[in-house]
């Protein structure tokens, strides 16, 4: 597994560097925004100081995190659907192309657990599959606006967190992934009854394009908050951020 990951990294670094070139860096997006169209036409010049506009927007985004945490009802379930409504084929979506999906060997795979937990032993896939499993058909809503219905099965994440003796009063659960993705969620959402450590998709082993060996499936959050190819899970009180969150997407991103 270690070797696999290194091999992946060498190529991935180059590919990511190439990808980053045309894509706007975090501090660039508003600079572009404010020179565009409507607002600058109105004033005939730069409307507001760009740095402070960005600061205000980020502040409001933090405020929106709090509003969403307040709106979030731990007992309110996302709607579930009959299997006949599953979107086929379910769309592939990631920050890389389909041919760059990491291939993970099942046998040497270990899920690492860290941070504020009592039991830090790394989990094999057979161990995880022996835990009680549940499945559900829910709607995946992408930050881009599209949505698709899919069926995920696996271990209820709240059961798993309790089993590893996680500090359930901690603020965040963070994820780092084999595709060099990362994200983090609030503890309330981690403990939501529909949040699953998903090991299967549509009744079969989770395929590589949907996140083999596992993804976190959260029907109460946008798609990018559902990490795939999870390598490590950690419980913390220090804000961990995430791949898209660090680039300006709203952190809570509930749905």
């Amino acid at each position: 597994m270690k070797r696999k990951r290194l091999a992946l990294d060498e190529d991935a670094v180059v590919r990511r560097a190439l990808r980053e070139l045309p894509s706007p860096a975090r501090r660039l997006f508003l600079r572009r925004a404010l020179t565009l169209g409507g607002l600058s036409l109105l004033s005939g010049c730069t409307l507001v100081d760009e740095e402070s506009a960005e600061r205000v927007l980020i502040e409001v985004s933090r405020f929106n995190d709090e509003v969403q945490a307040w709106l979030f009802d731990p007992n309110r379930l996302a709607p579930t659907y009959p299997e006949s409504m599953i979107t086929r084929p379910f769309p592939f979506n990631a920050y890389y192309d389909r041919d760059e999906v990491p291939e993970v060997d099942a046998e040497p795979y270990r899920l690492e657990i860290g941070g504020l937990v009592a039991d830090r032993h790394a989990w094999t896939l057979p161990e995880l599959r022996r835990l009680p499993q549940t499945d559900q058909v829910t709607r995946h809503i992408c930050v881009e606006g599209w949505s698709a219905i899919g069926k995920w099965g696996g271990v209820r994440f709240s059961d798993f967190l309790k089993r590893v003796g996680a500090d359930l009063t901690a603020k965040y659960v963070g994820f780092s992934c084999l595709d060099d993705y990362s994200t983090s969620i609030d503890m309330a959402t981690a403990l939501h009854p529909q949040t699953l450590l998903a090991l299967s998709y549509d009744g079969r082993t989770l395929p590589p394009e949907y996140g083999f060996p596992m993804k976190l499936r959260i029907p109460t959050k946008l798609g990018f908050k559902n990490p795939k190819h999870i390598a490590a899970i950690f419980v913390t009180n220090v804000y961990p951020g995430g791949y898209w969150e660090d680039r300006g997407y709203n952190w809570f991103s509930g749905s």
Partner: protein
Amino acid sequence: MKTAKVHPLWLRLTHWINALAVLVMVASGWRIYNASPIFAFHFPDSITLGGWLAGALLWHFAAMWVLAANGVVYLALNFASGRFPRRFLPLHARDVLRDLGAAVRGRLAHDDPWHYNAVQKLAYVFAVLDLVVLVLSGLVVWKSVQFPLLRELFGGYDSARVVHFLAMAALVGFTALHVAMAALVPKTLLLMTRGR
């Protein structure tokens, strides 16, 4: 004696704050739409706000507070002062048809700013209701799990998105007409800024 103001200060303020909020919401909304178009077209990036999806979402979810808070103040003062029924009621289909006919023939009177003609009444009430639909459908698109009743009212997440888009299109249509009419009768622009 001072001439009485056609539009009180609170109305002029909420009107222009609303105009700015709608401009930001629409321009950033077009950028968000472009990330995953519902129909077979997209908006030219140059007339959108935000630079990319994350930037557009930041603008959209910041301006929404301005739009909503301003809208609540507008509605509260409008009803508390009795201005809303005084200005917009009664509103009969018969009068709308009559005034619409007069407008088409170029014979619609604008000489009394204290009274809206039936077409104006209909257009302004429509704009208010359309904004309410935009806010409610927007809540479903933003938080479909947390607002189950609203979600079912709009027929689910995907159709709430379509309603949100169509209500936006209607508001842009209203605004185009509204700006054209204000340009034809420039006095109204003075009334909405100075108040008289």
